[in-house]
């Protein structure tokens, strides 16, 4: 028993020595509010604030209050709060960068009470929206012919995008079904309603376009479909360059396909989703050109 108590004593002495060693000198304690939600926030906030032997932070998720304990000769409240803000958490002194806040996981995205509501920005956006409506109306009333033209090719493009989306999912059945619809859409186009430019290109590509779409429709193998799609995509690109689009269309390029010879496609989204590899290499590629013919 005696020896045990001795051992215990030694351990306590040792521990307290370690303790005192790790203690912060010139300690100053402050309590500040830091905005956040959950236990995950707590971990992030404390990790960002802590510096060994210089500062410790303890945050309470219910009260949102943090206890800062720091060496007043080595650091100050601002430095600690700045680090925490750079990790995504607002305090009375600092607002976190927007991109860092946006990257916090869903449960951590607390209400940013301190951030002023972007009044001017919103107003600007409204104005833009108004403007947009206005334009649309004007276009609708003054030039119905153009909108109809757009519709003529719109079906072709929409079906093309459906084929592409099916290929992204590596779904041969859907691809072939959508390709069949694309063939129909191509046949439905009334050439006389196209603008001169569109008409010229349409004449040039229509034959290939139809043939390729039909081939995709018949092919049951996704590899084969993709090979043909690479050809089809080039026809569509020529068409896209001369036709009106409601939203910008992105001309994208995968450098790897076809043994490094590369292949292209059109997409309505700027973010890359590769129809030639699907999930195998979904984001391989880059935007070559943004086509914006309103």
């Amino acid at each position, binding site marked *: 028993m005696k020896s045990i108590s001795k051992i215990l004593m030694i351990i306590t002495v040792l521990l307290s020595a370690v303790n005192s060693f790790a203690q912060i000198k010139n300690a100053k304690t402050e309590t500040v509010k830091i905005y956040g939600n959950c236990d995950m926030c707590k971990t992030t906030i404390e990790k960002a604030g802590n510096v060994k032997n210089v500062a410790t932070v303890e945050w309470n998720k219910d009260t949102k209050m943090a206890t800062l304990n720091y060496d007043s000769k080595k650091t100050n409240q*601002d430095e600690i709060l*700045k680090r925490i*803000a*750079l990790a995504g958490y607002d305090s*009375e*002194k*600092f*607002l*976190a*960068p927007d*991109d*860092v806040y946006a990257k916090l996981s869903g449960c951590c995205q607390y209400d940013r009470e*301190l951030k*002023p509501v*972007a*009044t*001017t*920005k919103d107003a600007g956006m409204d104005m833009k929206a108004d403007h947009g409506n206005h334009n649309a109306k004007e276009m609708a009333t003054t030039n119905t012919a153009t909108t109809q033209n757009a519709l003529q090719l719109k079906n072709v493009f929409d079906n093309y995008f459906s084929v592409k989306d099916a290929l992204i999912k590596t779904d041969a059945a859907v691809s072939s079904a959508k390709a069949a619809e694309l063939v129909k859409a191509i046949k439905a186009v009334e050439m006389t309603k196209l603008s001169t430019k569109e008409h010229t290109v349409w004449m040039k590509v229509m034959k290939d376009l139809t043939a390729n779409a039909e081939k995709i429709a018949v092919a049951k193998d996704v590899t084969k479909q993709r090979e043909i799609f690479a050809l089809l995509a080039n026809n569509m690109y020529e068409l896209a360059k001369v036709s009106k689009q409601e939203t910008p269309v992105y001309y994208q390029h995968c*450098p*790897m396909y076809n043994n*490094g010879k*590369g292949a292209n496609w059109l997409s309505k989204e700027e973010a890359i989703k590769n129809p030639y590899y699907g999930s195998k*290499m979904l*984001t*391989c*590629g*880059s935007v070559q050109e943004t086509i914006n013919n309103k």
Partner: protein
Amino acid sequence: MNIPKNITTRLLQAVFILLCSQSLFAQKVVRYDLYVKDTLVNYAGKEKRAIAVNGQIPMPTLTFTEGDTAEIVVHNQLKESTSLHWHGVFLPNKEDGVPWLTQKPIEAGTTYTYRFPIIQHGTHWYHSHSGLQEQIGMYGSFIMKKKEEDKTFRKGIDDLPTVPIILSEWTNLNPDNINRMLHNANDWAAIKKNATQSYAEAIKEGHFKTKIKNEWKRMLAMDVSDVYYDKILINGNHTSDLKTADGKTLKAGDKVRLRVSNGGASSYFWLRYAGGKITVVANDGNDVEPVEVDRLIIAVSETYDVVVTIPEDGVAYEFLATTEDRTQSASYFVGNGIKQLISPLPKLKYFEGMKMMNDMMKMNGDLDDMGMKMSLNQMDMNVVMYPEITGDSKQKEDHSQHNMNMENDPNRYNANALGEIKTLNYAMLQSPSNTELPKDAPVKELKFTLTGNMNRYVWSMDNKILSEVDKIPVKKGEILRITIHNNSMMRHPMHLHGFDFRVINGKGEYSPLKNVLDIMPMETDTIEFLANEEGDWFFHCHILYHMMSGMNRVFAVDDYQNPNLPNKKQAYNKLQRESNMPHFMAQNDFATNGNDGDAMLQNSRWSLGTEWRLGYNDMHGYEVETHLGRYIGKMQWFMPFIGFDWRYRKMGMDEHETNLFGQKNEKDTRRAISLGFMYTLPMLVNFQAEVYHDGIVRLSLMREDIPISKRIRAGFMVNTDLEYMADLKYIINKNIGIRTHYDSDMDFGVGLALNY
């Protein structure tokens, strides 16, 4: 009768008054007294020497209006000489402030007056041109305002509240020591920046092959900047607030024009703003058509005028200057209230940069741009290292194949095409007015190749340092058209004294005017200017440590008689000498089995070195080898030398040393003169061949400082005397390491390695 007389007198009076007022106006002398004095500062935890002018760092902002006469009186209260150069200012050559080129140094304890008319406007700055004084405080803003009736006065820009901003870096090390360490390839700065790029780190990131290829091509670690700084300062502070401008409290919608000068000695800074876009309205003191960007990099000694807007009340928006290596930054908060931060720039992907350099570097040390015709900072090879543009390194693995195929993409180094962040480049700058030069003036074409090597920190133009060239003669009234190609591995901000040059950037007659042009590795740029002011004008890299290594030229426009320098030849010799100062290094390992060490005195071309191995007893022996050599070639891989060896080793009765070729040495004491050469082989292995006067031949292979991990270095040596050595060293700080080695003569030893 009376009436006309009256009119004449009145007229005369009026004319007189007009003349008077005009002459008064033209002679408005603005005088500043500058007291230059040693001081102690504490910017980064330690008290260190600095130089303050009128008690402050940075030096006071000097403000003039176009048409004034500047009179600046320098009171040198230092213990050394000084000088002040007015960066980007048009003036008579004798006022330019380059010691031994345009004036004698301002000696300690003396007073010197600069006096020149102000004939331009814009944001400029001034700094010491003596030694490394610029690094420790001698920089300040120099602002020349437009007259309000100026035709080029831009409403909405030139009438905004302005704030002078001068960026700088602080290091707790003595700059002379930094200069020395750079020349000795001391990698302490890399350790501090966490940029050693050692083998361990390479393996961890899956870049072992990249590292091998890098060393095979005889390159040291990929470096974005050479010096580690402890603090970045904006107007002398690490963090500052701008709550009012022109006496008014800043509120939502207000615009502020920041007149930013980069007074750093060797740092480039990224400038970004948390409150939205930055509008660039002037560069190097010259107006440019406003350009909106997300960020810009300001090269050493450049100036940019940028306009920022305060979006909301109750918030102060961070204007952040981050060093190019991204290790340090300084903040300036614009507005009132809670501080909106901008996210820091993510860490550089060094190994991607190394891989890129490997591809560009040919075996002979030349750079190959693979036909990309790079210019004007449009293609930034460094984007491969920027996670915000080319993605995080973690995601890289899925895309490794993809990246390989990216190599055919013409835009793969074009930051603005790759990412959503708009970065300023020189091709975006356009002058609002016609800047064409007179068409009938004769044109003199010059070509420079920027050269250098990192291993020995020698920087030059056409592989010649200033001390190896004469002044370049230019006739007054000639147009100088200079094409500059950067064939070195670092970027160089080239600065011309006394003139603004046009940058040929595709804007035709509206080409922008600048006086500093940053040229990235592999870029080729063309500049031109009319040499219409006689005198000796300096043209140099503005990275202080590159300039001090001799990366300079002088354009001598006509035969200018400078009253400050009656003996021009002697003065030029002094200038040349100052740009090729010798530097000393020494190291010794105090080990259990003896002392191992060497000392070297080197300048850009010559090396005098001595190496010793001193045992603690006669059996182990004592050995000293001294070499005097000259480095040959641009990359300095080849060094022929003459040497002298002395050694003493007590050998047993029948003992003698035989080398690989069967040559014998039977004497205990040996003194020998030798001829030989050293050549750096791929993998940075030094091959040394020597013939002694007694016919004995010795070949050896040696490699030092193999970066195993961040702080561990390895080395080895084998020679034809059948001696060998291998060592491991752990670096504790910039001067101390723990070293263990095995030596064929002296066996195993552990010791403390000190280096200076």
